Structure formats: structure tokens, C-alpha cells
């Protein structure tokens, strides 16, 4: 029996659509991607089409080899078996932005199967888990419908852009695990260079299958599918909401309906889109226009050798080479742009700046789309290293940089952020403080060691925080001893 005391467990499986960063579309010569990183959907409507992607009568698909190689790379990096023979299938549904009335996808035999990802989560990434990958299949993106009052317009610029769909096993048990899985997968596909990773442009979109069951129950509960969420944070929140919604329903004696739901991030709610009864019969069958996709063993072997360093390998290397903690190293490799930025900064600053740079980069500084350059971070790390500035001063420099730009050394100078390491400057200040606090001085000297902190704090305050902390403490102790 289910009652208020029942402890539930959330079961989550994820389907991620990864847009492949090929120049042309999966079955036509139209462009799939712009130099600017913007989506082809933003071009003049329907200008980025050929008779193939707009589905003109008589047109035929011709498979883009690069998209195949990218899909294999994704499979290899996630430990999948690469099927030497796979098939394209037609998935039928009528919708205005589907110009052929069907989408070319893979159904019965996809290109990759049976892989896994190791995810890390918890505060310091100390919890690990293996999440199975059921399959990775290739497919074409649909066009876009734009709705106005009383009419809709169709834009086929995006139709035929290559996607892979990565389908996980229902192995995740919390929104946190789902988030960790998505970040891990995202890190891999961007490190492989097969995806531009632009979340705003929908390069990496997620559908989440969510169900709950009483803890210990062997059967899965009825699942709902939350469609098309394109931010990791929102996926976590949507799952969280959906699990609690399902729990409330069950406690109220209701049944969970198998259905597709949408997540509204403004309201932080999911709402029903269509139920299974209204679900489409896709009438899958092998696409007779495309012969079986046969992959030579040699191609797989060559791709295996050409795989770049993957985030997990890079994380281990950063830990070994620079002595970063697992958590820090994990953060540095979360996206390929960040890890590239980190490594470039370290190259400029030298190996012994690595830890400091990692500290600065993990402090919540947003690199993506900012004016920061690796030189900013290597300069700051060097200044911290030779004790010219403190870590907090460095953070101040970063916030000034991001607001106004500029050169690190000049900002330090202008804002007077240099640490005071000059004995002749510090000694009179300390003498002054000792003199103004005779009572505390006497107490200290009679054994109350704790008061050291009081004097150091007073001295630091008097230097407006600019004193070199280590030097200051040493000096205060010497003076206190008399």
C-alpha cells in the first residue's frame, strides 16, 4: 500500500539529440551550420534548402559520410558497439514542418549500441555511477513552424540538419544524476568536436523519461516523457517537479498516465502535451532509398586511433600533472571550451600557476562569451604567486575586467591592489595598534594566545586589506613577544 510514509525512488532515462557539426546536411548539400555558430534556421527563411531537404517530388537522400564518422566517434567515446551494418528507416507523421511526411531515422538496427558513461556527482564529485547507453542512432532534424494568430509559416532551413539521438538506460535515480549524465555527455561530444555545443541554438536537446516507484519495488512505474528541454538546470528542475507531481498523484489515489509533457521554465511546471492513446503510429520501415549502411572494420579502427583526449582522460592528466583535486580537474574539463581556456592559460603562466588558475576559474567566473583571455588568468596567477596581490584582489580585478576591460597590471596599479610587503611600512602600523590596545597586549603576554587573531585583524584593517597576510602575521607575532 502506498501512503504518506512510502519512500519513493525516481527512475530516469534520457534521450539526447546532439546536433552534429558537419558543414552540410545529412542527406543534402545544403549547409548545416554557419561560420558564426548561429543556426542555419536564422538565415532568410527557406533559403538554405535544396530540392532534397525541402522534399521535392523525385528528390532522393544521399548520405553525408562525415555525419556517419561523427556518429561512430560518439559511439566509440561512450563504449558502444559499432554495428558494421545498420539501416535507415522512415518514421511517418504528418506535420507542416516535415516536408516529406516522414523523418529519416534509424530504428531496428542503429549505428551504435550498448555503451555506458561513468558519471560523478555529489558535492565534490565523490559519488560515481555507471549509466548504460542503449543506443545511438542517426537522424535528420525537422524544419521549424512559426505560429502567428490565424496562420503559421514553415521554415525548412533546419530540415535535414544531422542529429544523433543518444538513448540511455533508465539507470538514473535523481535529478542530480541526470544533470551529471548530461554534463558528462556534453563534455564528450564537444571534446570530440562533433557538436558545437551551443545550447541556445538547440545543439544539445534533451527528452527525459521519468517514473517513480516505491523504493525496493522491482517493477518500473508508468513513465511520462518531458520533451525538448535545452538547459541542464531546467532538466534537473523539470525532473524534480515531475517526480513530485507523480508522487502527489499516486498519494491521491490517481494513476499515472503515459504521456508526453512539456516543461515551462517560467512556472517551473510540466504540463500534458498528448497522451499515449493519441500517440502516433509511426509506421517505421526501412528506407528503400538508402542502402544498408556498411562500415568497414578499418574505418572503426582508424577512428579509434584518431579520438582526441576525452574529458575523463584529461581530468586524470590534470590531476597528475598539476596536482589539481579530482573535483577541480573535473570542473576544468566540463566543457571543451573551458578546458582549452584553462590549458592555454597554464601554458602562458607556467605549470606552477595551474592550481591558482583552476581556483580562479572554478570561482564561478563565466568564460563563455566573456572578454576574458587566457593571458588575464595567467597574469593574475603570476601576481598571486609572487605575492604581489591576494586572491581576493585577483577576484576584484576580474570583476573590473569583465565590466570595463583593461590590462591586469594597470588595474592592479590603478586600484592600489598590491599587497603591502614592505616591513618599513607595516612596522609603524603594528606598533601603533599595540600601543592603542594595552589591555589586550597584557592579556596576550600572560598566555591568551587566541588574541593573535585580534591583532592581525586590526592590522589588516588598518592596511585596508592590502597587507601580505603571511608577512603581517609573522611580524605581529614578533612584536607581541616584545
Amino acid at each position, binding site marked *: 500500500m502506498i501512503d504518506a510514509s512510502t519512500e519513493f525512488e525516481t527512475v530516469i532515462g534520457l534521450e539526447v539529440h546532439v546536433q552534429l557539426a558537419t558543414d552540410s546536411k545529412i542527406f543534402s548539400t545544403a549547409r548545416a551550420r554557419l561560420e558564426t555558430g548561429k543556426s542555419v534556421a536564422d538565415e532568410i527563411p527557406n533559403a538554405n534548402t535544396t530540392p532534397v531537404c525541402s522534399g521535392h*517530388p*523525385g528528390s532522393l537522400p544521399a548520405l553525408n559520410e562525415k555525419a556517419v564518422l561523427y556518429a561512430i566517434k560518439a559511439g566509440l567515446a561512450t563504449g558502444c558497439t559499432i554495428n558494421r551494418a545498420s539501416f535507415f528507416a522512415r518514421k511517418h507523421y504528418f506535420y507542416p514542418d516535415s*516536408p516529406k511526411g516522414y523523418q529519416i531515422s534509424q530504428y531496428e538496427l542503429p549505428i551504435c549500441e550498448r555503451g555506458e558513461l561513468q558519471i560523478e556527482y555529489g558535492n565534490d564529485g565523490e559519488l560515481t555511477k555507471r549509466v548504460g547507453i542503449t543506443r545511438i542512432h542517426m537522424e535528420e532534424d525537422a524544419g521549424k513552424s512559426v505560429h502567428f494568430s490565424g496562420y503559421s509559416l514553415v521554415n525548412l532551413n533546419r530540415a535535414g540538419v544531422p542529429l544523433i539521438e543518444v538513448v540511455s538506460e533508465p539507470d538514473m535515480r535523481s535529478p542530480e544524476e541526470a544533470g551529471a549524465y548530461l554534463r558528462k555527455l556534453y563534455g564528450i561530444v564537444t571534446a570530440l568536436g562533433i557538436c558545437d555545443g551551443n545550447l541556445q541554438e538547440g545543439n544539445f536537446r534533451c527528452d527525459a523519461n521519468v517514473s517513480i516507484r516505491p523504493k525496493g519495488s522491482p517493477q518500473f512505474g508508468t513513465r511520462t516523457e518531458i520533451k525538448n528541454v535545452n538547459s541542464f538546470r531546467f532538466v534537473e528542475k523539470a525532473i524534480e517537479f515531475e517526480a513530485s507531481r507523480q508522487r502527489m498523484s499516486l498519494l491521491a489515489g490517481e494513476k499515472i498516465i503515459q504521456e508526453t509533457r512539456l516543461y515551462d521554465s517560467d512556472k517551473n511546471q510540466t504540463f500534458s502535451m498528448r497522451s499515449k492513446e493519441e500517440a502516433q503510429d509511426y509506421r517505421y520501415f526501412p528506407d*528503400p532509398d538508402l542502402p544498408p549502411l556498411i562500415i568497414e572494420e578499418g574505418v572503426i579502427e582508424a577512428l579509434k586511433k584518431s579520438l582526441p583526449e576525452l574529458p575523463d582522460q584529461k581530468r586524470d592528466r590534470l590531476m597528475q600533472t598539476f596536482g589539481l583535486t579530482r573535483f577541480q580537474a573535473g570542473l576544468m574539463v566540463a566543457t571543451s571550451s573551458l578546458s582549452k581556456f584553462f590549458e592555454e592559460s597554464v601554458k602562458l603562466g607556467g605549470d606552477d600557476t595551474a592550481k591558482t588558475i583552476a581556483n580562479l576559474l572554478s570561482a564561478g567566473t563565466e568564460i563563455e562569451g566573456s572578454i576574458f583571455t587566457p593571458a588575464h588568468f595567467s597574469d593574475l596567477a603570476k601576481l598571486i604567486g609572487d605575492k604581489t596581490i591576494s586572491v581576493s584582489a585577483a577576484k576584484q580585478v576580474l570583476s573590473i575586467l569583465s565590466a570595463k576591460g583593461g590590462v591586469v597590471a594597470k588595474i592592479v596599479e590603478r586600484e592600489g591592489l598590491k599587497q603591502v610587503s614592505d616591513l618599513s611600512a607595516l612596522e609603524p602600523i603594528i606598533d601603533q595598534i599595540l600601543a592603542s590596545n594595552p589591555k589586550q597586549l597584557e592579556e596576550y603576554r600572560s598566555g591568551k594566545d587566541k588574541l593573535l587573531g585580534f591583532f592581525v585583524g586590526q592590522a589588516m584593517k588598518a592596511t585596508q586589506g592590502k597587507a601580505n597576510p603571511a608577512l603581517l602575521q609573522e611580524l605581529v607575532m614578533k612584536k607581541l613577544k616584545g
Partner: protein
Amino acid sequence: MKNYKSIREVHDAYNSGETDPLKLTRDFFSNIHASSHNAFITLCETRALKQAEVLTQDLLGKYAKRVPREALPLFGIPLGIKDVLTIDGVRTTAGSKMLDHYIAPYTATAVQKLEDAGSITLGKMNMDEFAMGSSNENSAFGNVVHPTHSDRVPGGSSGGSAAAVAANLCMAALGTDTGGSIRLPASFCGVVGMKPTYGRISRYGQIAFASSLDQIGPMTRSVEDAALLSQVMSGKDTYDSSCSTEAVQDWSRVVFDTAKNPNAKGLRIGVPKEYFIDGINAEVKTAVLGAIEKLKVAGAEVIPISLPHTRYAVSTYYVIALCEASSNLSRFDGVRFGTRPKDAMESKSLDEFYKKVRANFGAEVKRRIILGTFALSSGYYDAYYKKAGQVRRLMRGDFEKAFQKVDVIVSPVSPTTAFKVGEKSKNPLQMYLTDIFTIPASLAGLPSMSVPVGRDQEGLSIGLHLIAPRFQESMLFKAATLAERLAT
């Protein structure tokens, strides 16, 4: 105007100055305008005359009155193109009201290759809607009238192409064949019709009926012309993944050599017992057996063979073809493609809109879409499409086994000669059985051909059906050349 027997004759006439591309094109248009066969859906008169004018200037100018046969093997040859093939800027209807206003933005590879070889396109040929039919009674643009017997059907679906070649409205035409749509009308109208191996000619630009069966082919006045057109159109195409990279032979040379020395010695001809069943018209049987006898007399060895899975051919074919058709025709939904009826825009929902638009399909097309949709529905795939695919492999196996013993297989093209208009149009099953002898080669993807070998008492043409192994068009043309020569 003169009724030229072959492309070679036209080129000779160009060389002698008897005519030129412009004159010949004009002659064909006056024939077309005077004819009542309804063979064309769209005429490309302005475009054709422009093509002809340029070619005529070239002939008189840079080619010094000698047809450049090597470089441009179809120099100045006026052709008809079945209206299921696209030409950039030209209306392409597929015989359907659905595409009444559709102007294609690109040219089919096969047509492009013909025009690159010097051909002139007179117009787009009438056909059964979306190539679905055996009598050309399913065209939204009216029936095609048989070239010699107006109460008879010309056969379908490439009925316009066959009738136009027979009635001297074009030198040759392109047809498409899914289950017999080139060979049947060729046989009914008394012209040569050839379906190459599946994958020989790019399907790019051919509005699909059943993708795994569809194949473009020539409909001509002679085997020689069929060889020439096939040769020009064949070969790999990066736009069609199902198009083969297999080398294309000089089939014109094969025909030429065989005609020079019409000896059938060493040729092994297979006669399948399953193709000479009860219900086959006696005159057809006599004519076909007569043609076989002549080949035997000319030195061929005639070997009885068996293709045991033949009886499953028609049902297997209809499952596969209809499943694929239901999918291929999905795009005609009125959003991008498909004529919108006037009231479609007042629809309250998307479903209502689709219903109104898809009412534009003709009855036979609707029947096939519904059957195909049913067969592909969830839970039926294994029992229908998948099972049909398995039977198809068995039938391929039958042919492979037979071709270990024989070089070509011969049979009638159809159990009867051209039947009467309206005779079978109310009985779809009877109509489907018209293609009983042509369907197996389609399912197996084999090159096959219809060559006229006689006429019945009413003067209706009878075709001999020849089938060769995959990519053995050379063998097919050799046997067809012999059959053609021996028939006359």
C-alpha cells in the same frame, strides 16, 4: 512526315540534308497537334524549338552537316518524357491533379543525360496517376488512346510514352517501370520497351511510386534505339544512393554486332513452365512460342525451367509497392506539395486540412495508399512488408538458380493483348493480374524487355518478354536483337 525507323535513320537524314532538327521538331509538333491520342500532358514547344534551333545552327555551322554521333549520340532526337520525371522550370504532374500546378525546380538525372547527349524534349507524357495502373485509365488528364485501336487501352502506366512512339509523335520516349509499366504498354502498342537492372539508371528526379522497384527505361522503335538511350542514361549518380557503380557496356555495339551476324548459336533460352498457364490468350501463346521456335531454328538452345515462387509474385509485389507508395506519397499534403482545394484554408484543424487536400488523389491512388498504410501499421509490419521481403528473396533465388542453366528467360509480356477500355477498370484484381509476367523480374531487379513479335487477328501487337541476369544488359540486348530480326 516520314516515319523514321530508328535514331540512326534520323541521323542519316540530317547528314544528307533531308531534314534538320528544327524541321523534324516542327514536324513532330504538327503531328502532335493533329493527333487525338491524348499522349501528352504538357507540351514544351517553345523550349523544344529553342533546343532544335541551336542544334540546327550547330549542325550547319560547327559540325559541317555531319552529326557528331560519338560526342552527341542523341543529337537532334525529339523525345517524349513521362510526366513523372522532373525538368527544371517545366510542369511535372505525375498524372495527378495533386501536382497540377507543380513546376519542378530541378532536372532528373536521366533527362539531363539525354539532353546533354543532344536530345530535344517535346513534352511530358500522359500516364496513370503516380504510375499506378496498367491501362492508363487512371490519369487525372484523361485516358491515352491506343495508337491503332481506339476502343483499346494502350497499357500503363507509361501509356502516353508508348502510344506517342507508336503513333509517330516522338522518336522515342522515357517510361518508368515498377511492375511492368514500360513493358506492358510497349507490348500493347507494338514498340520496344526496356527496363534496365534496378540501380542502372539514377532515379533522381523520378517522382517515386515504389522506391525499391522503380526504374526508368527507354520506349523506342527498335532494340538498337533502346540500347542507345539506355547507354546514355546509365551510370552512377551521387544524388541516388541506390544507383549502381557497375560499369556500363557499349550496348549499341552489342546490337550492331548481333544484327550483322544474327546467329543464336550458344544462346541458352529458359522457358519457365509457370509462365505458360491456363488463362493465357491462345494467340498470345502461339505468337510467343513461335518466336521461341524461330530462336531455336536460329541456333538457340531452348531449356524448360521452373520459377516455383512465381505464384506469390503479384501479392508480394502489391504489399511491397503499396507500402512504399503510402510512404512516398505522404509529402503530398498541401503544405509544400499538393494542390489545395479552395475550402482547404478554411479548415478548423490540421487534420481537416489534410483530408481536404488528399481528396485530390484519384480512386486507385487512394486505394493503394490506404492498403499500404494498413500494411505498415503497428503490429502488421512483420506479417506484410517483412514477409513480402522474404518472399522477394526467394524469388530472386529462383532466378539465380535458373540463370545457372540459361542466359535469358522468355515469356509473354502479358496474358492478353490490349484489352478494351473499361473492361477491367471496375475490377482491380483483374487489372493487377495483367502484370503477372512482368512483376517477377521487377521484384528481382532484373533487366527485362518487351520486343514486338507478332499481332493477333485483330491486328493488336504481341510482345515477347525477355529477362536477363542482373547487370547483364548485354545479353538482354543480344537476345532482343535476335528476336526482333527474326520476327520481321
